[in-house]
């Protein structure tokens, strides 16, 4: 298709085609699928496969935050909560599944001196139920918190601060040992995944491939969403919420819907992340970690789905490497990176590449 024809088409049909015409997202989706295929055909060393899978899970998490922050103007400093909900439910499933197959109770259950798993664990050994439960719990928590906040028009910095308090309180809660969720040690020692031994090369590759495919699906789905009529309303709401309301739209419903969707995507990331690292504990609920998610998005490029992916992969890749190579220096590098992006490249590293399309640049 020639350039002029494409421009003409875009002018004529507007945003619908524009949505599908995001080369960065299209490229990243293709890259994910290609990487997944490559892993299946010729898997490299398991630790590399595992690292790739973890990065993909973080990228999903970043996309979920970009959806509400970049496109709706709602900065959540508590997205770690939804990630943790997914992770905890997944860990519960893995332990329940392991206990059902091997008959050995998880360590922390024995540590607490209990004879069996707590009652509310019932049914969690079924993967489909656990999966739906994780999404449902994340969605429900997001709904209740979002309803309370958006209905009373709590937004901007207020919302960010309260969401941070939410994740902080959740962290304190999970540090307690009597919750039946492992207390401060968290949950680890997952024996099996769908009956296969955890850590075997096949499982590691399978998890990484599944996460990459999920990332591709989330990216494509999110791109369709932001390119749709709903996506245009999201941008409208971000830039002038009162104006949108006085045109007859219930912004509360719009924000609530996207907020819950974002929370469920974050939970999905948690579900995929936990079996790959083999542990979940309350530290994932530390407020600092939730702020870091926002940092990935800001570094990659706010309001640009591809930017969120690039930011998450870049920062976490650097972190994997540097926190082993020079752990003292990593916090300084991270804070320097944040200040650099915030002050010099307000739209993230994508500014450097000049990849940001004009229609978004005008939003600032």
């Amino acid at each position, binding site marked *: 298709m020639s350039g002029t024809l494409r421009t003409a088409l*875009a*002018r004529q049909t*507007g*945003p619908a085609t524009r949505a599908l015409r995001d080369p960065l997202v299209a490229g990243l989706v293709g890259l994910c699928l290609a990487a997944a295929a490559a892993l299946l055909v010729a898997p490299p060393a398991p630790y590399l496969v595992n690292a790739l899978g973890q990065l993909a899970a973080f990228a999903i998490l970043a996309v979920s935050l970009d959806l509400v922050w970049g496109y709706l103007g709602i900065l959540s400093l508590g997205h770690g909560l939804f990630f943790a909900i997914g992770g905890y439910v997944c860990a519960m499933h893995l332990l329940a599944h392991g206990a059902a197959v091997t008959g050995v109770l998880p360590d922390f259950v024995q540590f607490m001196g209990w004879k069996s798993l707590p009652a509310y664990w019932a049914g969690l050994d079924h993967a489909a139920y656990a999966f739906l439960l994780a999404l449902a719990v994340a969605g429900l928590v997001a709904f209740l918190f979002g309803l309370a906040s958006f209905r009373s028009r709590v937004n901007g910095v207020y919302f960010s601060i309260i969401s941070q308090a939410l994740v902080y309180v959740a962290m304190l809660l999970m540090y307690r040992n009597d919750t039946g969720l492992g207390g401060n040690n968290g949950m680890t020692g997952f024996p099996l995944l769908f009956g296969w031994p955890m850590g075997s090369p096949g499982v590691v590759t399978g998890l990484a491939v599944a996460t990459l495919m999920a990332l591709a699906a989330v990216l494509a789905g999110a791109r369709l969403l932001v390119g749709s*009529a709903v996506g*245009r*309303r999201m*941008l*409208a709401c*971000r*830039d*002038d919420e*009162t*104006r*949108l*309301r*006085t*045109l*007859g*739209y*219930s*912004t509360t419903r719009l924000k609530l819907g996207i907020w819950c969707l974002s929370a469920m995507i974050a939970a999905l990331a948690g579900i995929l992340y936990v079996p790959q690292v083999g542990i979940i504990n309350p530290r994932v609920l530390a407020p600092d970690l939730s702020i870091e998610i926002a940092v990935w998005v800001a570094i990659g490029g706010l309001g640009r789905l591809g930017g969120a992916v690039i930011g998450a992969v870049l920062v976490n890749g650097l972190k994997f490497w540097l926190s082993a190579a020079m752990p003292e220096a990593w916090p300084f590098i991270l804070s320097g990176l944040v200040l650099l992006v915030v002050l010099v490249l307000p739209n993230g590293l994508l500014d450097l590449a000049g990849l940001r399309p*004009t*229609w*978004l640049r*005008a*939003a600032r």
Partner: protein
Amino acid sequence: MSALVVDALTVVFGRFTALDAVSLAVDPGEVRAVIGPNGAGKTTLLDVISGITKPVAGRVTLGDGLDLTQCSEAAIARAGVRRKFQKPSVFPALTVRENLEIGCGPALAPRERPARISSVLGEIGLAPRAAVLAGRLAHGEKQWLEIGMVLAAEPALLLLDEPVAGLSDAETAHTAALIRALRRPDRAILVIEHDMAFVEAVADRVTVLHEGRTLYEGSMRGARGDARVIEVFLGR
């Protein structure tokens, strides 16, 4: 029957009374101008009608008896009330066409939107600029686009807050013509404006507000001759 009845409306910000028992009634098909010096409470009046500010006392009812003081902004808009803000409020990240699409409101079926958008584009004269981002429009173009956005839903009550503020004479004339063209028997228009020539050109009747109270209501000609109005506008 009136299209809009404002009854003994009182709005208080802290210790400051912005509106003090203001009443007015607008007939269907009428263009009513609300004038008054800065701080008279004009914008606050529109804020209450469009649901952004809640009054401490009084009622605002539409022709069908709906009490707007009990409704959310979105519900008021869905009842056929549209507001054009003083500061041009368009969505800068969206194109002109997309702005108008949102302006059609959630009620209009998606199939009917392209036709409605095309006709509004024609009315406001922005058809050639349809694919341009609203953030890149000139100030006057933004004003027209916003008028187009509020028109796209075919409102029964149109609230215009200083539609010609900051416009050139030519643009003002264009806007006056546009508003005159918007008159319909089933539509009431409430305009807030400082520009007396513009008000005289578009309004059937004027209401003069001063320090939160109604000072005068009647024809523009009558307002020019009213001693208290003259004192308020010219005396100090």
